[in-house]
């Protein structure tokens, strides 16, 4: 498992999710802290493309050997793509949480919601 890292180019949600913003679209995933707390992910229950998801609401689940965890949407929008590769290799979420371990791509319904998210330093300050 990689060392702890919280890239500066991402925005963070208190439920340990990240968003990589690109205009009015974004990519979501879970943070290093989240995957570490969960342990080895064995199952990612991908939402459907086209699903509407709402900021601060669970939109999918990831499961490790020992636990299941809701994944919260850091922003609202419509799912435009899901990471199908995770069906066969869900452990990618542990190995590369900010890269190959991304979960969904979303067309944002309200890009101004980004202002409510934390930057890397703010998010790290919330972790013990």
């Amino acid at each position: 498992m990689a060392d702890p890292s919280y890239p500066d180019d991402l925005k963070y949600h208190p439920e340990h999710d990240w968003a990589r913003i690109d205009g009015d679209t974004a990519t979501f995933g879970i943070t290093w802290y989240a995957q570490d707390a969960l342990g080895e992910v064995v199952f990612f229950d991908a939402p459907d493309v086209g699903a509407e998801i709402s900021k601060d609401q669970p939109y999918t689940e990831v499961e490790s050997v020992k636990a299941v965890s809701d994944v919260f949407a850091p922003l609202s929008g419509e799912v435009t793509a899901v990471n199908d590769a995770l069906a066969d290799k869900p452990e990618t979420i542990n190995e590369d949480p900010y890269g190959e371990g991304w979960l969904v791509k979303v067309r944002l319904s309200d890009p101004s919601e980004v202002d409510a998210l934390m930057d890397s330093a703010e998010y790290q300050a919330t972790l013990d």
Partner: protein
Amino acid sequence: MSFTTELRRTPLYDRHAAAGARLVPFAGWEMPVQYAGIREEHIAVRTGVGVFDVSHMGQVETTGPQALDFLQHLLSNDLRRMPEGGAQYSVMCREDGGVLDDLFSYRLAECTFLTVTNAANHEKDLAWLQSHADGFDVDVVDRAADFAMLAVQGPKARDLVRKLSDGALPGRFRVCERSVGGAAVLVCGTGYTGEDGVELLMRPDDASGLWDAITQAGATPVGLGARDTLRLEVCFHLYGNDMDENRNPIEAGLGWCCKERTGFIGSDAVAAARQDGTTEKLVPFAIEGQGIARQGNPVIGGGEVTSGTFSPCLERGIGMAYVSTARAAEGTPIEIDVRGRTRPAIVERKPLYKRERR
């Protein structure tokens, strides 16, 4: 029942912390749930050798001229069949057959037995045993503070321990005293993983030295997380999940360790359950396709999952559940409500994982 909130630590706490373990509260103890990762630790035990700190488990020693008669009265198995140096699994029941605990007992001498309790049940078991000792010429002694306990499990476990030992190891369901890594150890041919291996009982002061010797000899430290996935793959019961005081051993699938003819406490209720059948039975299941059922998930049409996890060896959701007896036969399709989603599963035969699969 203890109301203390302070967690107890085993003599190996410092070793766990140094090894990077994630420590969690378990039955009043601060125990390692994982070191490198549950899957990796699980596979180490299935293919090589792992070492577990199980010092949270309790021990009760029963000695005296009537030790055998006394335990025969309280434990479900036929203790007369356990020779000196033998080991035996049993349950302890209430009068109504409700299971108080499941236990391994070791016959150390003709009139000396050591019984290993589940950590969460130790005080309750001890009180139950002592409260029934009147009229028997026995001493029932709490020995939990006198022992630390390690489990060394896996196809290479015996080899590893043998090299540290001053003599041959006991066979399966046997026990003997040995010097292991220079320490006086009670070596037991038992375990909770479905693999070959031994369990070692030693003085708490000797635990760290033995842990170091065993890990330096190549054993992978394994936490409670993999202990749970390993035991569930081979359908070993976990008290509190798979049975408790509200279940009798027959519905829990533990009738094989109940010998009602011995007249143990609860034997009439167990005999009745065996003869009349029970409305529910504990069955192993495997999920068909994706999804992982967890403890407490309802079985659609009646019943409940008591243990559920992801099987690292079978790479699918597995578990045990109480279902109506009509649907308990091997091969029966069932459906489990996993957090609002219906997951199809099949009632399987024990064990879910067989060593021959390797």
